[in-house]
């Protein structure tokens, strides 16, 4: 029994991504159509050539008909996937496996979410009938448990932590400011971030990701077929997914300074991709910065910083766009926005642009242009500390020799 992976067996040959944001002008059908149109244009193929589809959406539609009807697909298979905030990554993962298995030649993974029509703040989910015993905490409250626990364990003061969290938000807003597809396209001063109204615990409005509408898509084929569509494909090195047993919510040994699910999925992904030193090997990482403390903890869980040191690395600018390892160069969930089902594919879209040299000059990352690094990582998480699902992928601009 082992997780063997499908390293270099499939490639992404086309991608599309809509602008994210409060898209009062676009419905779910429009967003799906826009992302699909972009993706098939980038692969230069007609929609009819795609053999099968994987649609990721948490709550903007049910069943494959959510996609087949607006796209008027010609009696093709469409799977609808849901896995909390990692929904888009889950659609991508399953699409890759279908190609690797030989079942289909050319497939599309697409994610979409239309959140802003609800009129509510934050996320709303549809849950099965409950017994009325679940604590009614919101997502920011669940993730705000991380900050005081981290401070307590590593001797970081509350003021220092506020600086660290503020800098993460500041960095991601700065990255999003130069990204035309991002929801928030303005730099935000540290003073504004630090003094924003409190939502939960230490977290202010600016510590939370953008609630938005959007869609992103990827077209995938076997690596040996990639040349038919492009001479500049993106190769899938690793796909790892973990659903945790919910240990942290019931086990007193869990200390709220890590996501065991992330640690396990990262280990698996690095093993699949043959990576031993992620910080030195990766050109960039797109990680699940749903709330600023999440990004802090992820830097350690993904092996980018030693335990207890990520807060110093954040302050030192290690993960800035021009830092040693750029994290969320597209603005991340914080500034690009977080339409649940689309986010995992949006992360891949940034790898697609950066690793293949298509990102516009003003936001290209030096680890690719000067450092010559070829690998990117995406990390997508759903749930809450102690009880979550985690996805890690590694993609690269060259197949292994």
């Amino acid at each position: 029994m082992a997780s063997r992976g499908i390293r270099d067996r499939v490639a992404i040959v086309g991608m599309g991504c809509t602008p994210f944001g409060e898209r009062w002008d676009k419905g779910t059908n429009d967003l799906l159509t826009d992302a699909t149109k972009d993706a098939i244009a980038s692969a230069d193929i007609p929609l009819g050539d795609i053999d099968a589809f994987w649609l990721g959406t948490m709550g903007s539609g049910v069943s494959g008909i959510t996609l087949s009807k607006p796209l008027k697909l010609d009696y093709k298979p469409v799977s609808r996937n849901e896995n909390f905030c990692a929904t888009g990554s889950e659609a991508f993962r399953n699409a890759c496996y279908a190609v690797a298995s030989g079942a289909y030649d050319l497939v599309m993974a697409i994610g979409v979410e239309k959140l802003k029509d609800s009129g509510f703040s934050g996320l709303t989910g549809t849950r099965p009938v409950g017994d009325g015993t679940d604590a009614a905490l919101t997502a920011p409250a669940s993730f705000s448990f991380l900050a005081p626990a981290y401070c307590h364990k590593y001797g970081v003061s509350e003021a220092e932590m506020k600086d660290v969290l503020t800098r993460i938000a500041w960095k991601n807003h700065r990255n999003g400011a130069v990204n035309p597809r991002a929801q928030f396209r303005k730099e935000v001063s540290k003073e504004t971030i630090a003094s924003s109204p409190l939502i939960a615990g230490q977290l202010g409005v600016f510590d939370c990701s953008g609630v938005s509408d959007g869609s992103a898509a990827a077209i995938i084929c076997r690596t040996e077929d990639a040349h038919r569509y492009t001479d500049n494909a993106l190769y899938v090195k690793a796909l790892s997914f973990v659903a945790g047993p919910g240990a942290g919510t019931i086990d007193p040994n869990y200390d709220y300074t890590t996501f065991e699910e992330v640690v396990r999925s990262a280990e698996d992904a690095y093993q699949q991709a043959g990576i031993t030193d992620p910080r030195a090997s990766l050109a960039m990482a797109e990680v699940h910065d749903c709330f600023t403390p999440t990004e802090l903890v992820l830097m350690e869980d993904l092996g980018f910083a030693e335990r207890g040191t990520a807060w110093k690395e954040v302050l030192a600018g290690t993960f800035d766009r021009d830092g040693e390892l750029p994290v969320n160069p597209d603005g991340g969930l914080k500034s690009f926005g977080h339409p649940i089902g689309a986010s995992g594919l949006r992360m891949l879209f940034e790898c697609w642009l950066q690793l293949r040299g298509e990102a516009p000059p003003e936001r290209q990352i030096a680890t690719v242009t000067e450092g010559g690094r070829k690998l990117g990582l995406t990390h997508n998480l759903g749930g809450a500390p102690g009880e979550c699902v985690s996805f890690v992928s590694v993609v690269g601009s060259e197949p292994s020799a």
Partner: protein
Amino acid sequence: MVGGAASSDEFLDRWRVPGEMDSHVWEERFGEDVYVPLAHAAFADALKAAGVSADALDHVIVTGLHARAVKAVKGGIGAKVGADRSQTIGNLGAADAGVALADVLEQATPGQLIAVLALADGADAMVLRTTATLAEVQAARRAAGVPTVEEQAGAGRSDLPYVRFLNWRGQLRPDPPRRPDPERPGAPTAHRVEAWKYGFSASRCLKCGFRHLPPTRVCLNCHAIDEMQPERLADVRGKVATFTVDRLAFSLSPPVVGVVVDFDGGGRYRCEMTDVDPDTVHIGQRVEMTFRRLWTAQGVHNYFWKAKPVEGSD
């Protein structure tokens, strides 16, 4: 009980239409004029039935919603009436006489005479004599940690803003958060987990001893299946492992304080904390569980357990 009597008359004093929050009252001097003779008559008849005189009474309780009549009766009854708690806990309505009697019984000694006179559309009087078992009952209740009326009244808060009180009573409708309304719990869903929901019953693995909240069939620690025994944790205390203040979540009393509680003897659960100033919550704080209303949705009151600070601990 060694004697009792009642007196009544047909008069309009206090009335409430079904569905109304509050009752209406007639001009109070009229009520006093009718109540006082009725109270005196019932009291005299009860003493006669008991065969005792007013000056033999050790404790006298006079209660009723008509404050003016109660005051007049207390002054003119010819017996020494003990102090009441109306200044701290108010008037408890139908429960007032019962609570006052419980209060007295917690302080009385065997062989004492107690009179209770309640004014409500007339007057009811009864005379009681405590027996030798009273001291035993008092000791047993103390040993079991049952708080006395005096202790419960003393633990009350005097800092509750009137606006919040009105909110809790449903007499003010604050602007709700921009969040979906809570869902009513499913009746079969709640019934299946009755021991957990109403008794806070966890499960402990018979193979390895790991304690699970809520109860599960499969052990997190050793993965044994269906090797669990139920374990009631409602009276088990714990400490705060970590906490947050949720300013977005729905609550009858925002903001929601969310805590992760690690229980004495094992087990962890994440829940709301209540009866606490959000600024004073801290890691390591001692808490105990209390059964509270979480929300009401579509007419269904949803009760479950919340943590609250242990009185007297840090």
